[in-house]
Structures are given as structure tokens and as C-alpha cells.
């Protein structure tokens, strides 16, 4: 099984090539708002190091959110183009589940900073994750309690939380390892695939009917 894994959901942009379960090439860096310019170059470099062509691959796994809207759609759209041209299967990997994979079980919550004081967070259970929630820092403190929290957030946002933090970080390598460990299946029709934006986009009306 030859797998290309992509990570663009937050500010980490990366590509990893896995062959028969082993990571053979990785290109990755912290690159806020530069995923569009970087991702294709990283994939080309990682494939070259692995000695593979796109058409040698069996599947492309992509970090599917929730996360930054722009990052998610760049990763997913790129994966679709690559899959269409290379006749590859597409495997979406839920980003918080990837972050939690292989981490100590006593850390019952995993979270990643979204924007302002909001976080995407989910409680871990034996089967993986309970449904993702969008919560404020204060709410996350109350939920995670004393047990602490697996978290991915910038240094300058750490003041939003008082719960003990155990750092984790998105990476393409983890996306690939997670997908293989869980035996995740490709989607039947990648044309209809969209990232997990977590929320349907709602346009709020500025006019209120108070009657």
C-alpha cells in the first residue's frame, strides 16, 4: 500500500509518503496562509525522495477537519485533483482524531484553537472520539477539568486556558499513520466529498423581527 498523506487543517502544511506502513518521506513546515503555494512543492519533493510517481500511489489521505476553512479547502481540493488525475482513492482523516491517536488515555479531551477564544474539542472514548464541539476557553476548562487536555494552539493563545496542557501538533505523517492504523476506507465518490467545516455556514440577517 502506497499512501500520500496531506495536512493543511491548521498552520502546519505538509505531505508524507508511506509505503507498507513505513513513513519513507516527509516535507512539512509551519506556514500560516501559505498552504496554496507550498503543498504542491512538498508533494513533489516527498514523492521524489520516495522514488515514486503520483500514479504509483494507491490512495491520498487528507486531514479533513474541523480547522481553518481556507486550509481545509486547499487540502481537499488539491487531493481531489490529484486523485482524479492519478486514479487514486481518497481517504478523509478527522483532524482531532489524528491529534489524539496514540496519546496517553488519561488525557480525556483533545482540542485545537479555532479563532478568537473558540476551540474545536472532543472527548475521547474507547472507540475514538465523541462528536466535536465548538467551545470557549472557559467552557473547555470546565469540561476537561483537572485531567488536563491534549491541545494544539499557538503560544500566544495559551492564556485562554487554565487547564494543564499536553501539547500535540498536526502532521501529515500522523494523518498517514492514523489512516493505516484504523484501516479507514476510501470514500465511494470523492466528487461529493467535502471537509468537516463543523458548522453549516449561516448568514445572519442584520434585521431582527422583534414582534
Amino acid at each position, binding site marked *: 500500500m502506497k499512501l500520500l498523506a496531506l495536512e493543511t487543517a491548521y498552520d502546519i502544511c505538509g505531505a508524507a509518503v508511506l509505503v507498507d506502513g513505513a513513513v519513507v518521506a516527509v516535507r512539512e513546515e509551519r506556514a500560516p496562509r501559505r498552504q*496554496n*503555494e507550498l*503543498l*504542491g*512543492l512538498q*508533494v*513533489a519533493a516527498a514523492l521524489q525522495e520516495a522514488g515514486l*510517481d*503520483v*500514479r504509483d500511489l494507491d490512495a491520498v489521505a487528507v486531514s479533513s477537519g474541523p480547522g481553518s*476553512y*481556507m486550509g481545509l*479547502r*486547499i*487540502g*481537499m*481540493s*488539491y*487531493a*481531489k*485533483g*490529484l*486523485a*482524479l*488525475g*492519478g486514479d*487514486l482513492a481518497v481517504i478523509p482523516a478527522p483532524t482531532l482524531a489524528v491529534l489524539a491517536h496514540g496519546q496517553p488515555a488519561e488525557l480525556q479531551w483533545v482540542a485545537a484553537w479555532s479563532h478568537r477564544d473558540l476551540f474545536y474539542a472532543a472527548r475521547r472514548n474507547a472507540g475514538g472520539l465523541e462528536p466535536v464541539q465548538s467551545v470557549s476557553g472557559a467552557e473547555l476548562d470546565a469540561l476537561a477539568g483537572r485531567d488536563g487536555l491534549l491541545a494544539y494552539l499557538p503560544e500566544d493563545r495559551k492564556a485562554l486556558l487554565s487547564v494543564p496542557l499536553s501539547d500535540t501538533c498536526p502532521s501529515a505523517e500522523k494523518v498517514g499513520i492514523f489512516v493505516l492504523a484504523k484501516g479507514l476506507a476510501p470514500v465511494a465518490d*470523492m*466528487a*461529493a466529498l*467535502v*471537509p468537516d*467545516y463543523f458548522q453549516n*455556514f449561516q*448568514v445572519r440577517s442584520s434585521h431582527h423581527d422583534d414582534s
Partner: protein
Amino acid sequence: MTVLGIETSCDDTAAAVLVDGHLQAHTVITQLDHDAYGGIVPEVAARLHERKIVTAVRQTLDRAGCELSGISALAVTYGPGLAGALAVGVAFAKGLSQALSVPLVGVDHMEGHLWASFLDPLQAPFSGPFLCLLVSGGHTHIWRVNAAGDYDLLGRSRDDAAGEAFDKGARLLDLGYPGGPALQAAAADGNDQKVRFPRPMAGTEHCDFSFSGLKTALLYYLRDAAPDARATDADIAASYQAAIVDCLMDRLQSAVRLSGLRQVCVAGGVSANLLLRQRLDSWSGREQIPVRYPPQEFCTDNAAMIALAGYHRLQAGQSAGMELPIVPNLSLAGRG
């Protein structure tokens, strides 16, 4: 050379296949979901592109009878437009070009419009530089087209675009949106001599436009005309449309005089206007200046024009790398 074009800059998900500059098939999937919001919502547009882009490409390849392995290059719109919407097309095109090992070229959306007239297989292409009057809801420009990727801006609207003048006029007359077709339909049986609207900038020795005063003149006419002396809506619409078209023709003729170029194409949504086309045809015959305009379906956003502009760039030896940026405020002006 078989070029696959991709366009996702606003609310149309579009793909097209061109072989040696000749259109084989194209698909435009228009997003209707914005109607409920009264305007295009950028985040909604981006998400809908993501759902439709593979379908648009597959349909186009099917209709063209073309296999993916037959594609020799990709052309994609990288601006101007909505950032999230552009990102879907650009990222998708990068993945596809990498998988197919074919070159990728970035096309300016407005540059696509500049070439749209030449999608008509019955019209001979121009040789050498030509003028392009680009008129849409967002732009009113006159360009000197020197070669693929080499454009000089000769004139532009100092306020509203011509398409905006149609939209605002149609709104004042309560004719609906989009204003161009609505105003044209309302004007069909009207007398265009009934109301004397101004022709801003007419006769000036430059190529700039202005339409805000015209819109204001209509507003004041509707406010001030005595009920018993007021023209019919058809007459008002016809007079207003004639004023917009007079302005476009006057500025175009000024550009011909100032540039010395005697080949003209007209593009963008307003180039669908039938009065404008009549006036262009009679002027063309009288002055012996060849004029081209796009087939009706290519006046609005499509990927065929992107593929054609991309084809010209590829022929000139240009292509982009995987670094191709997304440039929401991209402008053709000032590029060599």
C-alpha cells in the same frame, strides 16, 4: 494541444476542453443557492465549488469525448475573484496537473474575457494588436491587447461600471435583476428619443467613462417628472439604454482615434446587449473596422475563455509552477 480550463472565481463552477484553440465542450454549473441571501456569499460559494468541481470536469471530458490522459495542459483562473472560491480551482488544478504531469498556466479572469470573442469558430482571429472594450457588472475598461499576457489599459470608468448602470437603472424602474436583460426587454417597444439623458464624457479626448451622473439623471427624472408629462416605462428604459450605449460607442471611437488600432473586440456581460451589437455592426460596416464579440453564452463567466487565454499563454512559452498564488485583487493593468 488539448487544454483543460477551470474557472471558479465567483459563483460559477466551470470547465472546458479546447483542442488547438478550438472549443470541444464546456460546462457551467451556476450556484443558485445565493438567491436566498440576496447576494453572493463568499463562504457558500467556496463550499459549492468544492462539491461541483469534479462533476464539472468529468462532464466536460465526457462531452468532449476526451480522456484525462489526452489533456496536454491545464489553465486555471487565479484572480481576480473571491479568495475561497479561487482556492478551490487553483488547488484542484495543481493536484490534477501534477498527477497528469502536464503544465499548468494561471489566467487572469479578465484576461479570459479579453479572448472570449475568439471562441466563435466562424470569426477569423485578428493578427497584431487590437482594442478590447470590456464591459461587465464590475468593469468598464478599454484595453490594448498586444499579445497574450501583454495588455495596456487605455481607459476605464471613473465611477460605476456600465453593467452597474444597467442594474441600477433596472432597479429604479423596478424591472428586476440582473438589470441588463431586464432593461433591454423593457426597452424593446420604447422610443429612445422621449427622454434626453446625458452622455457623460462624450467628445472628450481620452478613453475614460463615467456612468454615475446618468444613473442620477434617471433618479431625478423619476422623482421630478410631472405625472401627466412622464414618459412610459418603455420609453424611459429605451432612452436610458440608448444613453449607456452611446457612451460606450463614443469612448470606443475615441480609443480608436487615439490608439490608431483598427481591430476591435467587445466582451463581458454587457457585450450581450443587442442594441450595443447593432450599433457596433453598423459602425463596423461604415468605418471598415472589423468588430468581434463573443457568442452569447461566453459573455458571462465560463471556462472556455480561460482555456483559450491559457492556450495563448502556453503558445507564448508561459506556464506557472506549483507556487501559483491566489490573487483576489489581481489586475491586468501595468503588467508587461
